[in-house]
């Protein structure tokens, strides 16, 4: 194992916490009620302030999906793991499965893996089904602007996927799950941990035959997927003041679907997606000072093919390659009641794509940030965290993002938090340089190199009350105001041949406000129940109407029944969404009218039983018990059954 002093130092300072709860340990009698709200508050988090703190002491409100919850939910990827987290909504579309946070689209949530930006947004969406769950230790979700620490895209919030680290001298794990729609998930992991180093390899195979919500049409709804991924992480520690972590990952996924068009054309479409990520994080720690360097390279390649049946007229092939290189340094100094964090970030991105003009475009962005985490009183605890960051982008110049976060815990049971800050989203390469022609429909969409960043001011005020070890109540009020949002303008002109020209302009505005309330209660290790309710108010300033597809009222409910002595766990998870409003032109007059989409609920069940003296686990599950979903408004997977086994050493 890694040396204890260094481990402690890393907990305090590293961008990645080695805080994975060990599933085996959780099953040992007498380790306490790991699922109790009070115990969960001891979870170490890093995302909100870039400093490692417990959930209870974190100055910026953070929610966590733990390894245990991921395993017990049966989730095979990050999207499934966070699906029933309060206040979230998953969106499913061309770009894959994205996260809608506080009513704002997936483009406004920054997705990180171990603190490093995930590249490869398609239509603004980082497909969260691309991030496999087998190597995930925990998922941290921070609501509200996080651009002060992470730069662009963190307007609605930040989701940070923390990868696993070996916990024992030798460990190995293999899991197989098979279910409806030909879904097969095979994962394996092996790890070694010594005093000064640790290594692990994780691999997964994820296949599904896809599904069709409306068999009366030729179109399929859920794509057929064939994918595999492999990741390896290595860590050196306790070499004097020096430590080092390196991680690399490769993923490949082939998605196929059939799309019928209104003209009668039938397309076989496919996306072959590959990602490569490599991160190296050397760290120097001496007393109250630490310096962390980060080198990160990320590649996203997507090959899109469209094969028209019985014709080649509309066949298409597009190859998109996105490179992101990043170098950063973070200096952290603990001075009495202050923890000062200052850093620099340099980022180079290159896109090579058929649809942008010119075919290769580059951008560079440099940033400086500074934050003071000042804790003038430890008990009752008060923390004041001002911070500011300036990003200088080669395409649109400088952009400052300040934030102030305050936490007051007059008594241990009651915590108040507030944060007010600025966020921005840089125009994408596509928005800047796209050249897309649809001759059959007679229109062209062109990028606009003069676009400015989209900006926001966000406020979060939350209260947490833990009257008993077994009961936690929380409420969060939020207000997000987006300005200069980028929209495709209706028509910017007409070409000589009569083709309509569309373009991107900074004319949109959006506001979301709401309340998220949560309650968690547990009794011993036997029962844990949780519920949440979210009220959401939205306004689309450009069109003077609500933002489409959002439910004003939404909720989640979860129940965990466990009998440790038998090694049995039953998990029930549910999300409920009220009426959602969409806008469609159903009478062909060129004007969209509102259409209400009825409420729906998803319900997932999973039962697991330990076998082989705790070295194995058998599980069965049902996803979407109520068979919610349809092909248009709500393309979620129909009811499906699965079963499988995990073996651990």
């Amino acid at each position, binding site marked *: 194992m890694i040396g204890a002093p260094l481990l402690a130092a890393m907990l305090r300072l590293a961008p990645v916490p080695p805080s994975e709860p060990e599933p085996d340990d959780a099953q040992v009698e007498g380790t306490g009620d790991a699922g109790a709200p009070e115990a969960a508050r001891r979870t170490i988090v890093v995302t909100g302030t870039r400093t490692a703190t417990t959930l209870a002491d974190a100055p910026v409100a953070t929610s966590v999906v733990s390894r245990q919850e991921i395993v017990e939910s049966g989730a095979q990827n990050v999207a499934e793991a966070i699906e029933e987290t309060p206040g979230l909504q998953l969106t499913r579309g061309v770009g894959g499965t994205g996260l809608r946070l506080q009513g704002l689209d997936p483009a406004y949530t920054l997705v990180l893996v171990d603190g490093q930006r995930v590249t490869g947004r398609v239509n603004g969406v980082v497909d969260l089904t691309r991030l496999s769950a087998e190597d995930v230790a925990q998922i941290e979700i921070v609501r509200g602007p996080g651009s002060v620490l992470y730069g662009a895209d963190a307007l609605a919030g930040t989701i940070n996927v923390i990868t696993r680290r070996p916990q024992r001298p030798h460990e190995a794990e293999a899991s197989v799950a098979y279910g409806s729609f030909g879904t097969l998930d095979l994962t394996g992991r092996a790890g070694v941990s010594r005093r000064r180093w640790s290594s692990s390899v994780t691999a997964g195979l994820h296949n599904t035959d896809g599904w069709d919500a409306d068999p009366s049409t030729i179109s399929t709804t859920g794509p057929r997927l064939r994918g595999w991924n492999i990741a390896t992480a290595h860590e050196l520690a306790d070499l004097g003041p020096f430590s080092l972590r390196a991680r690399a990952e490769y993923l490949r996924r082939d998605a196929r679907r059939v799309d019928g068009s209104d003209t009668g054309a039938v397309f076989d479409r496919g996306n*072959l997606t590959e990602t490569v990520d490599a991160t190296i994080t050397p760290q120097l720690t001496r007393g109250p000072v630490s310096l962390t360097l980060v080198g990160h390279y990320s590649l996203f390649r997507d090959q899109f*093919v469209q094969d028209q049946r019985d014709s080649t007229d509309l066949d298409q092939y597009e190859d998109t390659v996105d490179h992101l290189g990043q170098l950063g340094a973070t200096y952290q100094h603990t001075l009495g009641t202050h923890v000062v964090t200052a850093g620099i970030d340099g980022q180079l991105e290159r896109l090579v794509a058929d649809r942008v003009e010119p075919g290769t475009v580059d951008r560079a962005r440099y940033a400086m940030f500074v934050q003071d985490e000042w804790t003038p009183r430890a008990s009752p605890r008060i923390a004041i965290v001002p911070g500011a960051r300036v990003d200088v982008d080669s395409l649109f110049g400088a952009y400052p993002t300040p934030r102030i976060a305050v936490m007051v815990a007059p008594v241990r049971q009651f915590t108040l938090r507030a944060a007010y800050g600025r966020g921005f989203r840089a125009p994408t390469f596509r928005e800047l340089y796209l050249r897309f022609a649809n001759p059959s429909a007679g229109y062209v969409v062109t990028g606009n190199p003069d676009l400015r960043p989209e900006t926001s001011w966000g406020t979060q005020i939350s209260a947490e009350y833990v009257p008993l070890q077994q009961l936690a109540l929380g409420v969060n009020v939020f207000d997000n105001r987006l300005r200069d949002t980028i929209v495709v303008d209706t028509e910017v002109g007409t070409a000589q041949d009569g083709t309509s020209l569309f373009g991107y302009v900074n004319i949109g505005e959006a506001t979301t406000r709401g309340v998220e309330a949560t309650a968690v209660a547990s009794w011993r290790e036997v029962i844990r129940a949780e519920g949440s309710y979210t009220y959401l108010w939205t306004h689309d300033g450009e069109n003077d109407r609500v933002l489409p597809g959002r439910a004003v009222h939404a909720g989640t409910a979860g129940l965990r029944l466990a009998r440790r002595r038998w090694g049995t766990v039953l998990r029930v998870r549910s999300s409920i969404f009220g009426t959602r409003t969409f806008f469609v032109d159903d009478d062909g007059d060129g004007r969209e009218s509102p259409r209400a989409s009825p409420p729906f609920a998803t319900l997932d069940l999973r039962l697991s039983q330990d076998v082989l003296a705790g070295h194995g686990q058998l599980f069965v599950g049902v996803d979407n018990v109520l068979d919610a979903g349809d092909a248009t408004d709500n393309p979620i997977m129909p009811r499906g059954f699965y079963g499988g086994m995990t073996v651990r050493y």
Partner: protein
Amino acid sequence: MSMPPFSRIAVLSLLVSACAEDLGASLADGGESTADAAGDGGAQIEHVDDGEIVHTTVDATDATAWIHLDLETRAQVDVAEPQASDAWDLGFSRFNITINGGVSGPGGMEAIVIEGALLEDVNAVPDGAWVTDAADGDDDNDDPDTVFAQWYDYDFMTHVLSARPVVYVVRTVEGGHFAIAVDDYYDDAGSSGWMQLRWKAVDP
């Protein structure tokens, strides 16, 4: 310790990109369009006779070229300057159709537009106003006001053009009379720009 210089990224990406096959190669075996024109008519025009009615498919997929048809000979005619030629009767480019008259050509062609009619029911030139292709008038677009301008409905949501029930009775350059209905803008594979017409000779 540090990441590779950005210049080496390209090399790395080449190595990495080599991992996956080129999906574009899978398109090579795509079939030909079901509506590929050949034989009678010309390179871009195909006719199929069905009693007195002729079914014609025009490959009007090229937005930069006009395809011209002479109705009497049923032949595609190559015209360098349509504005100065009386060798053609109908011109096609994408969803646009011109007749050889007015602003489109010197042939003096005119037409009577019969709304809501079926081609089968039109056997003679009806009473009505003769019109021809005109320059853009007082309307909400900048396009010439051609006789055939209203042959379709456009769905703003799906971008699909669908034919309206209209029959056009034309008097050709040579003085012949034909009734024409536009059926579709898409071929069997769903590709746009494949203009489908039915037409027949009618009594003067």
